[in-house]
């Protein structure tokens, strides 16, 4: 267990150090201009509170699914040797389901924007 | 098309020869669009190249609008000139390429083209007063603050 503990404390320490140093060094001088959105230099900002087309949400979800999928690759790659054939089949079933979903989405043209 | 072959088409007193050999046709403002139709259609100078204005500082009809056309078949330019005081018919409905050129002439000379879809300033900020390329307006240069002038003429 201690190795995990060390790993976590190191992580926390690193983040704390980074936040502390940058927080103390960078001066805070908020100004009206800095709060305005950056519109390539044009000072009269255009409202961005318009309704977004639904395609963006679709793309977001597709990305999320496949990102989670690749997230699982790493732990599996580490434990693959002692998973045995049963384990590998379980893992493959996960990919088959997601693969089918991907093929369906591509057929329906979710990725084509025009 | 050399200058002389234009005789048949336009009245001779309207054709002037310029230093660069480009035939130039002077046209009163009223016949401008009709002449340009003939130039682009019948005479074959179909490609619109350039439009600008020259401030001749005359009492009446002060500005001189200079249209430049090019014929792809004869590989030659033709210039159509007209004089105006501040108004001119817009060419943009028939020639899409003249859009920005007319906006630029409006912006820098103050000649308004009626019939232009979107006549606004193109070069200067929208709140700009005056039309700088008119020869009555100054260049707008500031006295340069050289250290030598400060030393010679004192600090004022």
């Amino acid at each position, binding site marked *: 267990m201690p190795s995990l503990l060390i790993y976590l404390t190191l992580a926390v320490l690193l983040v704390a150090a980074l936040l502390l140093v940058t927080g103390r060094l960078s001066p805070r001088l908020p100004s009206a*201009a800095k709060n305005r959105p950056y519109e390539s230099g044009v000072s009269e900002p255009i409202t961005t509170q318009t309704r977004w087309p639904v395609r963006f949400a679709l793309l977001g979800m597709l990305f999320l699914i496949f990102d989670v999928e690749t997230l699982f690759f790493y732990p599996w790659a580490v434990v693959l040797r002692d998973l045995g054939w049963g384990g590998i089949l379980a893992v493959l079933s996960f990919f088959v389901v997601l693969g089918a979903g991907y093929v369906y989405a591509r057929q329906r043209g979710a990725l084509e924007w025009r | 098309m050399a200058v002389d072959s234009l005789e048949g088409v336009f009245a001779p007193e309207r054709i002037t020869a310029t230093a660069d050999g480009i035939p130039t046709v002077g046209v009163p403002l009223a016949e401008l669009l009709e002449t340009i139709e003939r130039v682009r259609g019948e005479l074959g100078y179909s490609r619109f190249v350039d439009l600008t204005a020259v401030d001749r500082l005359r009492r009446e009809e002060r500005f001189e609008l200079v249209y430049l056309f090019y014929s792809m078949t004869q590989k030659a330019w033709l210039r159509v000139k007209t004089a105006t005081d501040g108004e001119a018919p817009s060419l943009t409905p028939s020639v899409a390429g003249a859009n920005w050129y007319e906006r630029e002439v409006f912006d820098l000379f103050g000649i308004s083209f009626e019939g232009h879809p979107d006549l606004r300033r193109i070069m200067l*900020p929208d709140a700009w007063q005056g039309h700088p390329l008119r020869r009555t307006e100054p260049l707008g240069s500031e006295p340069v603050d050289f250290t030598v002038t400060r030393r010679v003429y004192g600090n004022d």
Partner: protein
Amino acid sequence: MAISQTDTDTSNNSDGRSGAPGFILSRLEDWARESSLWPVTFGLACCAIEMMAMSASRFDVARFGSELFRASPRQADLMIVAGRVSQKMAPVLREVYDQMPEPKWVIAMGDCASCSGVFNNYALIQGVDKIVPVDVYVPGCPPTPDALLDSLIKLKEQVAANSSNRHGARTAAGVGIVHDGIARS
């Protein structure tokens, strides 16, 4: 054109660090800022081409830590005004300058940015120090990439001296280290 002199915050470091550790920390801080000045891409005209030549392989500004030309002012701490600033562009330049986080520096690259050089007319701001405080002026039209690199080195010396006390307090408009090293009062 009287040069107004805003009070430069030259008291000791404004966030109260004094004594040995403060000194080491501020030395470290100055060194860190000075060795990676990220310019915001503010290429306007001909000087922008020489600025790109400076970031290309022959003059290679990456040797001085400024390789990354940030497009958004949020991530930049140096603005190289490369080119002539027209009346229509002035509010945009001021807006981008304001949106840059402190500490920030400005290099007026070329005659057009320093004093609008060849074009003394209605259309240009006569020198960018009329709208933003400038730290280093680079003469030349356009200045060769070596001149720009040399001005970057001059700016780094200035940054290494007191980068931390640059919190918002700016040297007066028009006052700054002229490229030939003489600090004009």
